Every structure is written in structure tokens, then in C-alpha cells.
């Protein structure tokens, strides 16, 4: 019999959360679950081109997540590799390091502190490039002590307090904010006023996109509080500068990247703002969504749970609707919303996810813990183990 046992392994934490690519994560899991493999073996197992396997393995090796051992002509699987001299049949076998060692290492790598000097240099490069292109940013960036309104398109806000007051003036009626935050943590004052500004922005329906760096001290496996839908967050290991763009018509950048207390420069020069918004988009496109890969707990509403339990028993939408005294259309809509929330496209996938979290169980496989064991609901073709 050529039956292969359904390969099921222990839970392996997602490496994606620590900056690994999806391919690398998949290959790593496969190695943990199925044991050492050759690159071609992995390709077959995962139905992926060997080129992609190679990239994933290179990435995992650089991260210290896998080891490779080369054996001269494995007796178990001798395989001729083209391009190698005869007799030198060597097979590289890849093995995973244990997750409990790999994850902390990746975590340390990802959670390193932001290099403030590099950030200041990056900020200056951005400003210099803009200046070269547009000749619009004159004095304030090199001589912030001058202060005041320099011209109608570049205004210097001398202190953080002035900046906050001006920011509050600028906010009403805005539809979009683009923010780059190089800070890994905010001081209490910034956090307090920031939260207040955010409340106002949410209240007026502003869409906010925020590009940040991974926090220095947060349990990254735990996604924490769900975000208000007005926010979209992404993270990148490096960001070019501190930046806020409002409606692509006004931009705020620190006047002196080394000294945040020297306040901000407010720019309304269309060319400069456009270029800064473009810079945001460029970095945004390459940043990752910190919510992806985090283990978001799935909770079902009472109605969803009741419905799922009925469907698990083999009810159709129509009979389940009858039981719940709701319309078949409500059943469809409830399931549709649940599927959207879980990110699945069909009922089979929905079942897989709900089964994996034990939200329900088909009757013949056993019963949920609280209920007494029920008999099989229909004749089965195989013996039950019980």
C-alpha cells in the first residue's frame, strides 16, 4: 500500500513574523516536520521550483535556521547530479535547527535598536536630494535657529510644542495622513498628544497609513489590541526619515535629524511634498504588515458558533436557518462574513480553519467535550478506533 501518513507536526511558530520570507518559513516548517531533506526532495514535497527552494534555503542558512551536511554518495538516495565529475556524487542534506533556538535568534536579529546616526544620515540624504532636485528647501534645515516663516512654502516650527500646535491647526478636514515613524517607543508626552490627535483624525474619518520600525520591546507573537480600521500599519527594519504628509499637500519633517527638540519644518511646496509622498509610497510598498503572521485569536460570535455547530452536524444552510429561526439568506451572509474574516474563499477552507481551532467537530469523529458521545450519524466504511 502506498499510503503516506498525513504529515502533521508540532506547532512551529511562524518565522514570517521575524522577517523571514513566506518561502523560507514554509521550507523551515517542512524540515522541522518531515526531517532532513535534499533541496530536490523539498521541491518535490512542496511542489515548488528548486530555484525558490534554493533561495529559501540560502535565507534560512544566513539566519542560522538550518544546517547542511554534505555526504559523499548517500547510500539511501544516490542521485547523479549533472555537471559534477563522476564519482563525486555528493548530496547536500538540509536540516532544521530546533525552533526554540531559531526563534530567539531571529527575534534578536529583528529587534535590534534603530541606529539613530544612520537615520540622521538618511534624513540628510533625502533632504539633499530634494534640494538638488527642487532648490526649494533653503535655510531652515541647516540653520534651524533662524526660525519663523521663511517663505510661504517652507515654514520653520521652532519647538516641538509649536509643531504640535501647528499640527493641531493642520488636521481638521484632512482625508489622508502618511506617517513614517522611526521611533521604537514614544515618550509619554508624545504618546499622549499623539493619541489625542489620532482620536480627532478617527472622528473625522481620516485614513492613516503609518510606516514604522519593529518595536524594541514587545511580544511580537501577540498582536495586542486590534487596530482601529482607520489605521493601516506597516513595518520595515529601516526607514528613511521622520515624516508626516497630510493630504499630499503639506509635509512635516524634523528640522534637525539629530536634535528633535529643534522642531520641524512644514513644507507646502508641491514638488517637495509630492517627492516626499513618493518616498513614503516607495518604502510602504516594501514594508510588511505586522499583523500578518501574528497569531490573532479567532473568536466566534454566539450566532456564528451556533451556526457552525449545526453545519458540523451535517445541516444544510436551509435546515440550519430553520433551527436558528433566521432566513437562509442570513445564514449565507453570516458565513460569508466569517469567511472574509478568516481569509478563506470556500466552505472546505472554512471547515479546515474551524476544525484546526476546534470550533466544531463532525459527529463521526467524536463529540465536543461537553456533550455525551453520540453514535455515528451514518454507516461508515471503516471501524472506529473507539
Amino acid at each position, binding site marked *: 500500500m502506498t499510503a503516506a501518513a498525513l504529515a502533521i507536526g508540532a506547532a512551529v511558530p511562524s518565522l514570517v513574523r521575524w522577517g523571514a520570507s513566506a518561502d523560507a518559513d514554509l521550507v523551515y516548517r517542512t524540515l522541522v516536520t518531515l526531517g532532513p531533506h535534499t533541496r530536490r526532495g523539498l521541491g518535490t514535497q512542496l511542489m515548488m521550483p528548486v530555484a525558490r527552494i534554493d533561495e529559501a534555503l540560502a535565507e534560512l542558512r544566513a539566519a542560522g535556521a538550518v544546517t547542511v551536511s554534505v555526504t559523499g554518495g548517500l547510500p539511501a538516495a544516490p542521485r547523479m547530479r549533472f555537471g559534477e565529475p563522476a564519482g563525486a556524487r555528493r548530496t547536500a542534506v538540509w536540516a532544521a535547527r530546533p525552533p526554540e533556538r531559531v526563534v530567539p535568534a531571529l527575534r534578536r536579529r529583528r529587534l535590534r535598536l534603530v541606529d539613530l546616526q544612520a537615520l540622521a544620515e538618511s534624513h540628510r540624504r533625502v533632504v539633499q536630494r530634494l534640494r538638488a532636485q527642487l532648490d526649494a528647501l533653503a535655510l531652515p534645515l541647516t540653520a534651524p535657529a533662524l526660525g519663523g516663516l521663511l517663505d510661504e512654502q517652507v515654514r520653520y516650527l521652532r519647538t516641538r510644542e509649536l509643531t504640535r500646535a501647528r499640527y493641531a491647526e493642520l488636521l481638521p478636514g484632512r482625508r489622508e495622513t502618511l506617517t513614517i515613524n522611526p521611533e521604537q517607543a514614544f515618550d509619554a508626552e508624545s504618546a499622549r498628544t499623539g493619541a489625542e490627535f489620532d482620536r480627532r483624525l478617527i472622528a473625522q474619518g481620516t485614513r492613516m497609513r503609518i510606516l514604522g520600525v519593529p518595536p524594541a520591546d514587545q511580544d511580537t507573537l501577540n498582536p495586542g489590541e486590534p487596530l482601529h480600521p482607520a489605521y493601516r500599519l506597516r513595518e520595515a527594519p529601516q526607514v528613511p526619515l521622520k515624516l508626516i504628509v497630510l493630504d499630499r499637500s503639506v509635509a512635516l519633517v524634523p528640522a534637525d535629524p539629530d536634535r528633535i527638540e529643534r522642531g520641524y519644518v512644514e513644507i507646502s511646496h508641491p514638488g517637495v511634498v509630492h517627492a516626499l509622498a513618493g518616498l513614503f509610497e516607495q518604502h510602504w510598498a516594501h514594508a510588511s504588515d505586522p499583523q500578518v503572521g501574528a497569531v490573532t485569536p479567532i473568536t466566534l460570535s454566539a450566532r456564528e458558533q451556533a451556526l457552525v455547530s449545526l453545519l458540523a452536524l451535517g445541516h444544510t444552510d436551509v435546515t440550519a436557518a430553520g433551527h436558528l429561526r433566521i432566513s437562509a439568506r442570513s445564514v449565507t451572509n453570516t458565513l460569508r462574513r466569517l469567511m472574509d474574516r478568516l481569509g478563506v474563499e470556500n466552505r472546505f477552507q472554512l471547515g479546515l480553519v474551524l476544525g484546526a481551532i476546534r470550533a466544531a467537530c463532525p459527529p463521526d469523529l467524536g463529540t465536543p467535550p461537553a456533550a455525551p458521545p453520540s453514535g455515528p450519524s451514518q454507516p*461508515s466504511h471503516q471501524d472506529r478506533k473507539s
Partner: protein
Amino acid sequence: MEIGLRDITLLERERELIALLAAGHTDVTAAERLGISPRSVTTIVRSLMDRLGVQNRFQLGLALGVLRMAHAPGVPSDRGGDPS
């Protein structure tokens, strides 16, 4: 309590098909990938459903999802901690 686990060893073909369906493929696109007819896909799924004692795709998904958890070695059950 015991989850009455069936002996579910999957044939290679079944494993491939399930992986495709789990990834969101339809019967037709999964059939194309595997180089078999959509009718064969239906037959394979049907036989798997019979073996698991379920009547529809949703239940099939549930069963496979539950079994995955139940089989996972070293993972405590999330309800009451019964190692099946």
C-alpha cells in the same frame, strides 16, 4: 473524552489534492494541476468523505482540521488536555 479518530492515512494523490483545495483551488483548477479530470477529483473527495463519515465539503474540512490538531504530537489539547 476521546475523539474517535479514524485511521486516516491519506494516499499520495489525496494529500496532493487536499493541499490544493486547502490553498483555495476549485475542483477544476486542482484537476488541471494534478493532470486528472474534474470528475476524478470529485471521486477522490467523495471517497475521502465516505471514509471520514462526513457528508459535505465543510464537514470534510472540519474533520481534516480537527485531525491535524489531534495528531499534533506534544501539543496539549486546547480543551481539557486530552492527548488522543
